[in-house]
């Protein structure tokens, strides 16, 4: 405990060579190796970071819970995290800020999503309204999939409290479904295509049903870093904004670059549904999640997200 405290109070920093725009600033960026992270690799490849005098190193992260401490100890300067853990962390008082958006859930609820609620073969479930009392697997509890699931269930007239939500990793979902260990699961690509190939029925697309048009993954940084290096923060936002626009316009470039940082096969990449890249974000986007988290009891008390967004002019 004592050591921890010492490290905390005397936090050294690896990133801040200097705040002046003329010198190159080295930053580490935490990303999960999924399609959404293509923007940072594109920005690197297209030289957007170099233009802003940023030397960016992408680092693999597994989950927000592990990435956010890394922001606090300056091991990472930015991380690509979905809105749900971001607001959860912020609501608990962690000094982090959202600097930019990376993507949104597709505004068109009828679009084809890369993730879907799939039922087990024998459950006979065809629509979300039949899921009362079911056991449903998601990849992580109290995360975006569970939020989407609960909202979608509410929309279909099912009390979310009546279902049991359990956590299972994506690769094991298909076998959990085929062996009837769970009634349904929210499966994402590339495993969604496996599930379809196995003949498992797709029930709905909960993300688009409940969250269409809402903010997807966002770029977050620690407040302390942003205070110390506002210029670097702005430079990063400018570069990533350009990259997001490029990604939105060039899906093939996204599919190509995914090959450099994921293990997804070319065929699967070609078939993958890409995120809806969009760099716009405002306080309301965040407040939507803050409110939803309260109603779904992910967090205990109301949270005002208005101060969470770090904007260029501040």
């Amino acid at each position, binding site marked *: 405990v004592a050591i921890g405290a010492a490290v905390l109070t005397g936090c050294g920093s690896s990133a801040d060579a200097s705040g002046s725009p003329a010198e190159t600033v080295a930053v580490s960026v935490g990303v999960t*190796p999924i399609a959404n992270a293509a923007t940072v690799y594109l920005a690197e490849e297209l030289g957007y970071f170099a233009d802003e005098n940023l030397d960016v190193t992408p680092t693999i992260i597994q989950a927000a819970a592990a990435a956010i401490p890394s922001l606090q*100890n300056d091991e990472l300067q930015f991380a690509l995290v979905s809105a749900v853990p971001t607001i959860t962390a912020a609501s608990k008082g962690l000094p982090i800020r959202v600097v930019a958006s990376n993507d949104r859930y597709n505004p068109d609820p009828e679009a084809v999503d890369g993730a879907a609620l799939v039922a087990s073969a024998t459950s006979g479930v065809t629509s979300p309204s039949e899921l009362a009392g079911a056991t449903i697997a998601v990849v992580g509890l109290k995360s975006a999939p569970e939020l989407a699931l609960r909202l979608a269930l509410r929309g279909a007239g099912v009390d979310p409290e009546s279902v049991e939500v359990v956590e299972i990793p994506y690769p094991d979902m298909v*076998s959990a479904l085929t062996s009837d260990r769970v009634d349904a699961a929210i499966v994402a690509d590339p*495993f969604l295509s496996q599930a379809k190939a196995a003949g498992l029925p797709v029930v709905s697309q909960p993300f688009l049903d409940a969250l269409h048009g809402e903010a997807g993954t966002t770029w977050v940084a620690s407040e302390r870093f942003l205070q110390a290096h506002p210029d670097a923060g702005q430079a990063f936002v400018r570069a990533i904004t350009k990259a997001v626009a490029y990604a939105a316009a060039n899906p093939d470039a996204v599919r190509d670059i995914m090959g450099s940082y994921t293990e997804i096969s070319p065929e699967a990449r070609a078939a993958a549904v890409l995120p809806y890249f969009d760099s716009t974000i405002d306080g309301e986007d965040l407040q939507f999640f803050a409110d939803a988290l309260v109603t779904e009891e992910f967090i205990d008390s109301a949270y005002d997200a208005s101060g969470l967004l770090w904007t260029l002019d501040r």
Partner: protein
Amino acid sequence: MSAVQAEERPPGALAAGALRLALPRTLPKLAFVAAAVAAWQLWAGAGNLGAVPTPVEVTVALVGIVADGSVWSPLGVTLSAWAISFVIASAMGLVVGFVLGASRLAYRLSVFVLDFCRTIPALGLVPLVVLMFGARMQSTIVLAVFGAVWAVLLQTIYGVRDVDPVARDAFRSSLARRRDVVIRLVLPSAAPYIATGLRLAAAVCLLLTLSAQIVIPSPGIGQQIVLTQLGGAIPKMYAYIVLSGVVGVAINAAFVALERIVLHWHPAHRKAIR
């Protein structure tokens, strides 16, 4: 050789005899491994193992990562993290174990804290460790040490206490220096216990290194498992998993060989049984 079935081997002819003796020793092993792999192939082939691929698919993937060289860097990182954490955990466990085994006072002073800390799950410390050391090798090492030190510590405490009283008297009456008592009496008497502790610690270190690399994730085989998992490259993921098992078997074999040499005097390893 077990105590019950102690049967001395006839002196036997020399070189040819050695070969004849070595072959029957490895043959059952190979046969059993083959049987296990065959069972896996049949089971997975029939689709009974869910997402688990067949050994053939896994072997192909394994050959793939070896052929394109992508296996070496994660393997190297994992092995060095393992080695460092194992050395630290063993050293700490041995030293503290000796003190606690030899001194009732020290034991009484610390038993509360030890029993308390021992049950704190290493994986629960991930966020703290990440906060303190980042997603680097240090973090995996800290977690592995935290998890593995107990095995050595406990075994050492018990081992130190298990010294034969007559042997202890013999040492006391020969006025051996403390150093000699430790090196020549306590250490060898405790050695069988410690050996078990080290073997356990080696396993726990590897498992925690891998688990930490998965959970944090930090570079190494564990991170490759995450990457391949997220990318849906399941045979490749199992190739890495099998690789970690193989590393474990190799580590264990090394320990057994070492033990045969170091503990040759122990009834479990004596060549000629009385």
